[in-house]
């Protein structure tokens, strides 16, 4: 049974003057332990999809099942919180998701909301900071950290709630290359070592190729779904959807156009080999 399953999920922001559906019958399922990248141009509905999975928004139509429990309007507050803690979320702006003035207090925020015993919170906070490699900064003030460090604290705050799945909504978009590398390393580590299901919304193709699976959304519909090799091989289609392809793939595609016989994937491998030697 998939960990998260959506069937014909549709959504419309009703507070608009001219309400247009943002998601059209999205049916996707994610297995436990999967690392999925979600791509799509601005306004394609990725964040909306994420907020639906986190129960911040309520579906207009269709169903969502998380860990065998279906999401519906009559859930009690306790049930909503129980589902929310299974699917953590890390946002784009590192400044706007940290609540406390001390790093460890911030990491403790989630578990505190869940009403966990102080000693257990302490244990979880220490462990979460250890996993993201921020133990030395436990007593620091968040506003004095770098962007990448802040995002790692935000990740620690989510890990401390012991989620099964973490959604990253463009969490590296505001970071410099170094911060981006720090965060991506943490994301991969969580997936590999902690077995956490990762849904990574991104505009960065070089991040997407590191996933097990890539889903492309456009105009609220699923357009492609497959391994990075399968998806990125369709260079023309991706361009038509307003997306770029990873640099190595693009290079290979251009080489092929100019008569060098390489499939994009072989090209990627060739370039990688070339860099590694």
């Amino acid at each position: 049974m998939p960990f998260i399953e959506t069937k014909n999920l549709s959504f419309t922001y009703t507070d608009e003057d001219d309400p247009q559906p943002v998601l059209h019958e999205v049916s996707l399922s994610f297995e436990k332990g999967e690392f999925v990248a979600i791509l799509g141009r601005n306004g394609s509905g990725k964040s909306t999809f994420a907020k639906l999975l986190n129960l911040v928004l309520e579906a207009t139509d269709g169903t969502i099942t998380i860990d065998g429990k279906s999401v519906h309007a009559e859930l009690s507050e306790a049930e909503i919180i129980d589902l929310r803690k299974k699917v953590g979320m890390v946002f784009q702006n590192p400044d706007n998701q940290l609540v406390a003035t001390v790093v460890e207090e911030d990491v403790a925020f989630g578990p505190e909301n869940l009403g966990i015993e102080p000693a257990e919170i302490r244990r979880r906070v220490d462990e979460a900071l250890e996993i993201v490699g921020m133990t030395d900064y436990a007593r620091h003030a968040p506003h004095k950290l770098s962007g990448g460090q802040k995002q790692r604290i935000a990740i620690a705050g989510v890990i401390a709630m012991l989620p099964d799945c973490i959604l990253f909504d463009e969490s590296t978009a505001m970071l410099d290359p170094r911060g981006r590398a720090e965060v991506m390393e943490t994301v991969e580590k969580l997936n590999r070592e902690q077995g956490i299901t990762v849904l990574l919304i991104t505009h960065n193709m070089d991040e997407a190729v590191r996933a097990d699976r890539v889903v492309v959304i456009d105009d609220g519909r699923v357009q492609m779904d497959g391994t990075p090799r399968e998806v990125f091989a369709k260079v023309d289609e991706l361009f038509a959807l307003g997306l770029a392809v990873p640099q190595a793939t693009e290079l290979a595609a251009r080489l092929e156009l100019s008569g060098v016989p390489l499939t994009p994937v072989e090209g990627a491998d060739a370039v990688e080999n070339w860099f590694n030697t």
Partner: protein
Amino acid sequence: MLKDITLGQYFPGNSLLHKLDPRMKLILTLLYIVTIFFANNLITVAILTLAAFLLVPLGQIPMKTVLKSLKPLRWIILFTTVLNLFWVKDGKQLVDFYFIDIYSGGIVYAASMALRVTALLAGTTLLISYTTSPIALTDGLEQMLSPLKKIKVPVHEFAMMMTIALRFIPTLIEETDKIMSAQKARGADFETGSLLSRAKALIPIFIPLFVSAIRRADDLATAMECRCYHGGTGRTRMNRLHYSLRDLFALLCFLLFMAGIIALRWAPLPAFLGI
């Protein structure tokens, strides 16, 4: 330039005063204020003032800083001194010069009033402002006032608001700096012109600042919701405050001191010292 603004007057440190539980410091401050009003003669008021200054080394705060913080008091002290000197007509008449009459009582009154005001400010700032971080103070107040939750006082909500404000003040200050630089780069002038034109020049700073603050608030609300925030009910805390032996010791010392001061009310002191 805006970066230098510090929150309150907190002086980070590891002294005995810093280590006291914020709740105990609040209690001691209240007791101290009560004691000041109990002191009814020049000697006890002087002892209280001296005691406040004894806290300076205990809190490892530079004396200069403390004296500087007392500076604004000079006008109040001057005003009350003058008032007391000329208006109080107790005790022996010392000066009789046309309309200036000064009595011994006036001098005693003026001196004790000046000392009282100094003691009040020095004592409370040392116990609270200098040695308690705003966040510890918020936590202390929240825990101390938590019984009020029973009568529906939103104690947790206020504490949460305080925490978020403290968390975002540095971020917003940084943002103001950025916006100011951006507007300066476009030729905005904040430093010259009349007061009115300078105030007007601030509008292009405040509007983007407000817009961004509202945006941040919206993001933060979503992020908090995602982290299962649902108000104060059923919420636990990782770091609960605990009174330690140190706090008990401080309280005992203070109670002894307070008893001594009150006892001095009935001590056989020269009558002219009484206020």
